């Protein structure tokens, strides 16, 4: 690719974007960190750091495992109702993580729905295992989308058939051929989920506090929430810097590994056979459906029931139902905020994917560095990144949507980039050559050949960024101004000090309309099919 993109302004554009979106804000943060480093009482403890690392690694491993298995299942095995299965696996992406935590707690936690019904509760839900599990379930669609995109653009079926006819069982073929070919995508997904894990706040806050399990993010929250003392602020920034550093180290180590293994683009080849072989996996499919029901649908139902119930502790039966909790969560500002959130999410998704594609296009050392820089933005906890953006752009852009957009793009650029990078590596150069010697300029070739081939990745990344942005709460609640409050902010502002039914209602409001809006789109518009290309 790099050769094809020679003599284009791409490196310049990417450099400018890195400088503006990541460089400047982080430089401001580093400035603060340096200033406060010797401040008495600024030293954070070790325990939250260990806890955070555990959550990050655990979530990354579990999520990539779940996402990749799900992708192999829906794209490679013979399963009935493939479209619906895809939809089911994607479902959690529509649910903000803190809603997942809340709903799991309501469904499977102590005195949750299951506990009330049959006296069963999920051991360990409160604590690290539960945190990892819920983060993973929430992030599985991310890993799934990235893997599916890569399966579409990288690992073609004929390569697996070649392994089978060389004597490999389906499992061995997956291990030796399919998964290695997916390595860049899996690593990309792993990096993102690792960062999601170490950055998670809602889930550890809900599931960790009762088990006295603190992570860096909950500590940062506490430091900022309790008082405006300089040392608290300093400690928050130091902790945030620690997160960034950890993400940087882990991800660049992974990339170095991958880079040593080398890029493995497949030369353009005549299309080979692509049949679906093997027996229909009915049992496994049924099992996956049960898992989806238990992991996503049941908790959501529990949540809806809580939101409908008049007061905590009452049985969730129609006699105790009320819409008051919803009424409390909605008011006149809701619609304006909904519009702004949608606009911001659209813009953020488009810019993050656009910038991500650019970085993915630079397949050299500079591109890798830019990719890491983008990841830094994602690794900085929302509250800290918002402070950094405020320090850099606050005076110029105060109270504008642009300020929030900058923060969104700085944060979510990495999601756009990693979604695409795992797939971009395998666009055979000949396909681009062919376009150019048919008379297409670079930009035309990108538009007509490269982007369509990357469509599964581009669309997947876009959807992810859109949802992340749509659900974003921390940064917007710090950056909004008169007339620029977002949906999550406007709902959050109505919340009464952690009143459980109302916050359940809030969660339902953030989730259910998306579900209701998305499902017909997914089904009638056949979106997963289009999103992932043909087949």
């Amino acid at each position, binding site marked *: 690719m790099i050769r094809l993109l020679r003599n284009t302004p791409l490196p310049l554009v990417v450099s400018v974007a890195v400088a503006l979106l990541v460089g400047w804000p982080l430089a401001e943060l580093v400035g*603060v960190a340096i200033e406060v480093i010797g401040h008495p*009482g600024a030293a954070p403890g070790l*325990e939250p750091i260990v806890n955070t690392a555990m959550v990050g690694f655990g979530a990354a491993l579990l999520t990539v495992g779940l996402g990749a298995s799900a992708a192999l299942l829906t794209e490679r095995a013979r399963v009935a109702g493939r479209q619906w299965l895809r939809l089911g696996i994607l479902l959690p992406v529509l649910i903000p993580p803190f809603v997942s935590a809340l709903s799991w707690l309501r469904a499977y936690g*102590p*005195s949750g729905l299951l506990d009330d019904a049959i006296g069963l509760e999920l051991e360990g839900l409160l604590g690290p295992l539960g945190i990892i599990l819920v983060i993973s379930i929430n992030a599985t669609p991310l890993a799934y989308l990235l893997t599916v995109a890569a399966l579409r653009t990288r690992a073609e079926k004929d390569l697996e058939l070649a392994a089978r006819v060389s004597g490999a069982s389906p499992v061995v073929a997956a291990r030796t051929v399919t998964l290695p070919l997916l390595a860049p995508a899996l690593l990309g997904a792993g990096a993102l989920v690792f960062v999601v894990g170490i950055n998670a706040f809602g889930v550890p*806050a*809900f599931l960790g*506090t*009762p088990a*006295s399990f*603190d992570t860096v993010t*909950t*500590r940062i*929250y*506490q430091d*900022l*929430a*309790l*008082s*405006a*003392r*300089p*040392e608290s*602020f300093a400690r*928050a920034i130091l902790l945030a810097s620690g997160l960034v550093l950890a993400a940087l180290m882990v991800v660049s180590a992974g990339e170095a590994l991958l880079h040593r293994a080398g890029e493995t683009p497949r030369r353009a080849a005549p299309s080979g056979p692509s049949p679906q072989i093997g027996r229909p996996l009915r049992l496994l499919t049924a099992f996956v459906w049960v898992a989806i029901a238990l992991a996503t649908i049941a908790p959501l139902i529990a949540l809806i029931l809580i939101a409908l119930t*008049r*007061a*905590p*502790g*009452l049985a969730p039966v129609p006699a*105790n139902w009320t819409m008051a909790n919803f009424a409390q969560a909605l008011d006149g500002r809701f619609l304006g905020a909904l519009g702004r959130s949608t606009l911001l999410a659209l813009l953020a998704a488009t810019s993050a994917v656009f910038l991500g594609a650019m970085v993915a296009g630079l397949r050299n050392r500079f591109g890798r560095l830019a990719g890491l820089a983008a990841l830094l933005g994602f690794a900085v906890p929302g*509250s*800290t990144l*918002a*402070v950094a953006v*405020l*320090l850099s752009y*606050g*005076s110029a852009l*105060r109270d504008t949507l642009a300020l929030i957009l900058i923060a969104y793009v700085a944060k979510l650029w990495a999601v756009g980039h990693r979604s695409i990078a795992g797939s971009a590596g395998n666009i055979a150069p000949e396909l681009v050559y062919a376009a150019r010697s048919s008379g297409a300029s670079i930009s035309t070739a990108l538009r007509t050949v490269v982007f369509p081939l990357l469509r599964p990745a581009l669309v997947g990344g876009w959807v992810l960024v859109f949802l992340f942005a749509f659900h974003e709460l*921390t940064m917007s*609640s*710090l*950056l*909004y*101004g*008169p007339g620029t409050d977002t949906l999550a*902010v406007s709902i*959050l*502002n*109505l919340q*009464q*000090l*952690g*009143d*459980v039914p109302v*916050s359940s209602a809030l969660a339902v409001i953030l989730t259910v309309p998306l579900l209701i809006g998305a499902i017909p789109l997914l089904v009638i518009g056949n979106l997963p099919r289009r999103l992932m290309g043909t087949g």
Partner: protein
Amino acid sequence: GGGEQADDDGVLRIYTSVTQDTVDAVVAGFEEANPDAAVEVFRAPTGELSARIAAELRDGSLVADIFWLTDPLSIQQYERDGLLREWDPENIEAVPQEFRTGSFFGTRVLNMVIIADGSLMETPSDWRDLTGIEGDVAIPDPGFAGSAFAALGFFALSPDYGIDFYRDLKDNGGVQVRSPGDVVNGVAEGLYVAGVTLDRAARDAVEAGSPISLVWPASGAISLYSPIAVVDANGTETAEAFIEYVLSKEAQSAIADTGWEPIREDVDWPHTGAKLTIDWSLAFDRQDELLADYREIFEG
């Protein structure tokens, strides 16, 4: 500091972490009384609000005329930094002595109370009872909310209790939950037999029919207040007028209508009892130490 940046576009900017409907009600009343005033509210949870203020202070772009916060913790720092204007509102006398200083003034009162499972035979009647009760007792995490920290501050600094009170709670089956709301929920669902929470949250649940009872501790609820102050560098006469208005009887009634205990004793408020107060200045100074002691008990 933001001193040089005093803006004079005539807009009154309020940075607040107080609940939206309360702010809305007060601002609406103020605007009605002062049709020329333009008011902009920036509301955010305490953490986000202090981060924003810190950031704006750093680059000198702080535009707030008024801080109106949930609890008296962060505002201590602003006062020490000389950010706040020292002045005496006309309504100052309406605010009890223990709920104000020279630069910030209480606007409403929050009380930490006991709640108990409604089916409990022997309900606890005072704080000490919580350490002897049979069953788990839910404690809100003082790291998460100022109100929970108030309880920690009160007990740890009080010669009658001391930090050992928490050790006793823990030994007797005390469980840490995230927020006062979670305490209400947990007790209502029968997960805990009793807990420490905010009166407002408990009252709402009881009124909606939750099977819990609210116990006003015999020795008194731990009371904290939501302070309001003028940012010295920015605040104009309008800012002072706003605070005057908040402390007025009219505004206080509006606050009471949104479910919060007014600071003025001359406004009708049925749900009250004995109050215990905290030395916020001391609690603020020893914040890290208190939290560390607490964590050692609950997380160590």
